[in-house]
């Protein structure tokens, strides 16, 4: 059993992380597919808009709730799943609305927050909100206990780092003293004494007001006033998610390609996991050029002679040039990967060479899953 098979058989949460364009979403889907084949009730949660994932799973579109992948899809590919496969795509704004509605102390307070302009801006766009809501969703799905395994796909690496910090950063954000201090003149509870105590902030605010306008500041202050009473809940769930991610029911799968920059990202990410005490499970190296033979090493002189020869000779010259070019890539990729091996031992690696077909449909996804599990 390779490390990937072990993880999908035992864990409750798998987090896939890596740079953009390395096949992270596809890997997440393939892991979930295999777990479902093996009898687990599995949900794959993707964060970036991934229409192709929907179509490769035979779903019209992915929604903010898990949707089951039909049995017929499996049957058509000649498969008999022992478990069930569900897929969903995070809608940040909808999830945030749900969180507010669920955890606000009163219905009126929830409505006030939902109608606030500042809230409407942050719920869709604030950097970090997406990651934070992914965590809320993960928490909800895991706490619900409906699934044996949840596979979660994250945004590209630098932001995957945010992903880990998101709950803490967001609770800090909502609770900021600095912000309160600045906004006091706008907070209804402020009153005369507060205003007096806060002359410096007022001066500062005058400049800010000139830049963004006073409405923006009023909206912001109103939002934070309305958020009173919800902080403890935010913090509690942030702690719970952090515990879940550090516990041994979770495993992180780092996805990379052998290209220099994505290897750098993967190395960075592996170090981060280590630092944060998060359980690393496996490294998936996608898009590797295949190594065929050990390099022929024809001499330039020999190639030149072939090039000036007859048609068959010229053909051989081209074949040699092609082989040499690919060997060069293979060696360069190997060198990049060697650097990674110093951080992640090779027995935790799964290499997926460039496939001759793409995972654009269900059978394609099945082919990838087969590769991953050796």
């Amino acid at each position: 059993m390779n490390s990937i098979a072990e993880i999908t058989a035992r864990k409750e949460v798998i987090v896939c992380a890596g740079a953009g364009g390395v096949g992270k979403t596809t890997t997440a889907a393939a892991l979930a597919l295999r777990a479902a084949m093996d009898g687990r009730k599995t949900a794959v949660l993707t964060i970036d808009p991934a229409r192709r994932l929907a179509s490769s799973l035979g779903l019209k579109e992915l929604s903010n709730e898990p949707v089951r992948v039909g049995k017929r899809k499996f049957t058509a590919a000649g498969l008999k799943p022992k478990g069930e496969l569900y897929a969903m795509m995070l809608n940040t704004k909808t999830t945030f609305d749900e969180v507010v509605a669920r955890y606000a102390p009163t219905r009126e307070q929830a409505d006030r927050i939902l109608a606030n302009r500042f809230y409407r801006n942050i719920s869709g766009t604030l950097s970090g909100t997406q990651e934070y809501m992914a965590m809320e969703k993960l928490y909800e799905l895991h706490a619900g206990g409906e699934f044996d395994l949840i596979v979660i796909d994250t945004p590209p690496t630098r932001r995957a780092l945010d992903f880990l910090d998101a709950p803490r950063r967001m609770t800090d954000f909502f609770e900021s003293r600095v912000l309160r201090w600045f906004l006091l003149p706008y907070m209804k509870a402020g009153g005369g004494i507060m205003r007096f105590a806060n002359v410096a902030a007022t001066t500062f605010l005058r400049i800010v007001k000139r830049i963004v306008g006073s409405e923006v500041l009023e909206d912001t202050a109103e939002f934070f006033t309305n958020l009173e009473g919800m902080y403890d809940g935010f913090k509690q769930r942030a702690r719970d998610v952090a515990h879940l991610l550090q516990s041994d029911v979770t495993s992180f799968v780092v996805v990379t390609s052998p290209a220099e920059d994505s290897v750098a990202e993967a190395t960075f990410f592996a170090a981060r996991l280590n630092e944060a005490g998060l359980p690393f499970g496996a490294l998936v190296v996608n898009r590797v050029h295949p190594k065929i033979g050990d390099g022929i090493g024809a001499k330039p002189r020999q190639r030149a002679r072939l090039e000036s020869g007859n048609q068959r000779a010229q053909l051989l010259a081209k074949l040699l040039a092609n082989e040499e070019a690919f060997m060069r890539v293979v060696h360069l990729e190997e060198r990049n990967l060697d650097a990674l091996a110093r951080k992640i031992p090779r027995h935790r690696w799964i290499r997926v060479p460039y496939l001759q077909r793409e995972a654009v449909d269900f059978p394609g996804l099945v082919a990838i899953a087969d590769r991953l599990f050796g």
Partner: protein
Amino acid sequence: MLLEEFLDPKILIVAGKGGVGRSTVAAALAVVAARQGRRVCVTEVDPKGTLARLFGSTAPSYQPSELSPGVWGLSILPEQALAEYLEVQYHIKRISRVFTSTHFLDYITTAAPGLKDILVLGKIWYLEQNRAIGQRHGFDTIIVDAPAAGHMLSFLSAPMGLSDAVRLGPVRRQADWLVDMLRDPKRSRVHLVTLAEEMPVAETLETSHALEKRLKLQQGPVFANGIYPALFSKQQRDDLEDGSGETAVGGLIEQGAGIGLKLDDEDVDALVGYRDFLEARRAIQARYLRRLKKETPQPVITLPFLFSAGLALPDVETLADVVEAKVATL
């Protein structure tokens, strides 16, 4: 098309999904412009140090530094752009520190969405107008290595969206200046970069549509990156097709022997294997290139796969050669 004409807008915005080689194309365009004797500035807005790696130089900071002859680089962080804005606009120097040392900017930019993007675009406007603080000379070409696709559209549309949040005042007027800068085809143009694969092509087509219909920005040729070269002529491919049989493989060994190159069975497997690999990848790429060419109104410039696994300046120069040659045929 003449290179002069190609380089006519001062601002070239290079955009695309993560992993498609956006920074590499930005660097190649910078080299193309520098070869025309222009002073070029490449700006990174999502600094990852890629530019520094490509040019083999130290990572650029907020002040332009020369990366290679004629090419300057700088990375723009919104906090620094805000400090500069306050200094230029309100002659405030001291308070900038309060802004940057607290997370105040985070809150305020959150309250007014897109403000961070506007600050970054504002810096590009300063550069375009040669009005940036400490700017010793003007630039003829400004290449913007845009944020990755997901964020790119909101980045470029930020000034258009600001009018909802701020209806009056200097900021509103300045946002309008940015809209003018981006929408004027004589001043700005967007180039999308993609790979010839299913997902990047689908995303490129969507982005291109949005740029045209929603943002109304001018687009130039799309760059399809990492295209495996055509190695074999049709005749040669046919020969090889027949060549799976004994004779042709034997033929290869004989040909080799004729020039003193000893090929064993494993060598022949490698020669045939890599040929098959190349042709299979080319077939996939051809399919998505066809789709790209059919569905985008922009011309498509293909850039070769460079048989490397991390690029450096010589590769950038090679790509610049290709861009020059292909622009000439447009």
